[in-house]
């Protein structure tokens, strides 16, 4: 798909050097939320309950990175900037990075490795169960994020596996929804954004399906074979 007409060529099709620079910049930018938390901790500016503030800050950014990762493909299709996809793996891995720090904060600062309490907590409190499930589901995606793993799995299987990121998004929003006491404004906002991203994808799929069917109908034999198969 060609880039939109109003986008300058240099941005539509950056050279290799430019792309590397962009990647470095994004890499550094993704560390800013963590730096901000550490800076606040250093200045003793995390409020009366620093452990809660750290847990929440890291949780919020895990969810942000998940949704940013999910926005890459829509943004790419809408803008025609195909190179955006080259940032997707890094963003996804950052989601996993923040999720793991968030989990570590919980295990270490919050529960102080009290494994009995942790197991009970994960089993008993629905919001913790959901959070843990979301993190677990991220593990295989992070583990298969390398080129080598992609080749080993084969494009199709790899893609099918990585589609679970949408389910992870749903479980993560549930985790947030269930943990707030009463004011669901923020979880609701995240749910809306996730819903829009899912809807965009569903509509495109249908479109593509429709176009493919139309193409098939033009070759009657195939259309019959297809309907027979269904």
């Amino acid at each position, binding site marked *: 798909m060609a880039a939109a007409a109003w986008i300058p060529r240099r941005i539509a099709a950056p050279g290799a050097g430019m792309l590397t620079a962009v990647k470095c910049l994004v890499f550094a930018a993704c560390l800013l939320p963590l730096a901000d938390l550490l800076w606040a*901790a*250093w200045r003793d500016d995390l409020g009366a309950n620093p*452990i809660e503030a750290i847990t929440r800050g890291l949780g919020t950014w895990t969810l942000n990175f998940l949704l940013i990762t999910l926005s890459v493909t829509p943004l790419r299709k809408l803008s025609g900037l195909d190179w955006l996809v080259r940032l997707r793996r890094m963003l996804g891995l950052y989601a996993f990075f923040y999720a793991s720090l968030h989990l570590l904060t919980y295990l270490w*600062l919050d529960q102080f490795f009290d494994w009995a*309490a942790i197991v009970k907590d994960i089993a008993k409190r629905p919001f913790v169960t959901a959070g843990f499930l979301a993190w677990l589901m991220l593990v295989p995606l992070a583990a298969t994020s390398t080129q080598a793993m992609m080749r080993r799995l084969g494009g199709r299987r790899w893609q099918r596996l990585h589609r679970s990121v949408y389910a992870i998004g749903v479980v993560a929003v549930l985790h947030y929804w269930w*943990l707030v*006491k*009463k004011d669901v404004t923020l979880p609701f906002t995240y749910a809306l954004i996730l819903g829009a991203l899912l809807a965009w994808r569903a509509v495109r799929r249908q479109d593509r399906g429709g176009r493919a069917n139309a193409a098939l109908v033009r070759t009657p034999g195939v259309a019959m074979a297809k309907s027979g198969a269904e």
Partner: protein
Amino acid sequence: MPRYTPPSHAASEITPRALFDSRRAFIRSAGLGSIALAAGALGLGRAASALAAQKFGALERSPFSTDEKQTPYKDVTNYNNFYEFGTDKREPAQSAQSLRLRPWTVTLDGLVARPRTLDIDSILRLAPLEERIYRMRCVEGWSMVVPWLGIPLAALLKQVEPLGSARYVEFQSLHDPAQMPATRLRVLDWPYTEGLRLDEAMHPLTIMALGLYGEELPRQNGAPLRLVVPWKYGYKGAKSIVRIRFVEREPATSWMRAGPSEYGFYSNVNPGVDHPRWSQATERRLGEFLKRKTLMFNGYAEQVGQLYAGMDLRRNF
């Protein structure tokens, strides 16, 4: 009046200082220096109290007070659940500052012989102010130690001569959307409503707080007067009260209406009955790193246990 005896904590419930320090040292030296720094920010080294101006003069020490380390003034006044001013606990410290505190009246009515509307300044003169240093345990799993100033609630309630038919007391907080813009979001059923059984309300531990740390109550803590019931979860302590009603039937509180399966009428601190969202077995005392065990009735079992003799506290949560 039952004499106060300090709750006896099992030694295991108090983290030995040495263990605590060694854990801190461990965290400092661990590879993840970043998170260690955060733990360092817990403020354990901070001075115990930022004692504000002693506006109320010298006060007698109450036998009901605990001698546990008090939560710093800064934390007591910057970590507040006061949803009329926003659902983020750091918000009320700013957003509540516009609350007008005078004129302020409290109406006491319902099943009483002499219904009255009292001015806040006359309430302040009703009985000698006492200092009460109480533990406060929030349902969310954190706790504080707050040096309140106040009068026994009983002193206020006796002003109107409750009738024999009055069995419960309902408390209503101010609901003024002009001063409390956050109430436009119907997060809870406004006005904020709480309730106590009459014997709980008359119990000597129950106070109407009018100040803390020796000064007038800050707005974010529920000025000009709020309820403090130290053996119950913090949300029972209705803030900025304008009406007290004596009733025959158990009143439906705002939180009961919001989540009947999560919040009961009694809301006694009980480590044995978990909330679906938070384990109630342990709590984090603000300023401490390790969680501590939560005590039955928040450590006030000797004083209030008999109020619930024979009741199934699992059902009456």
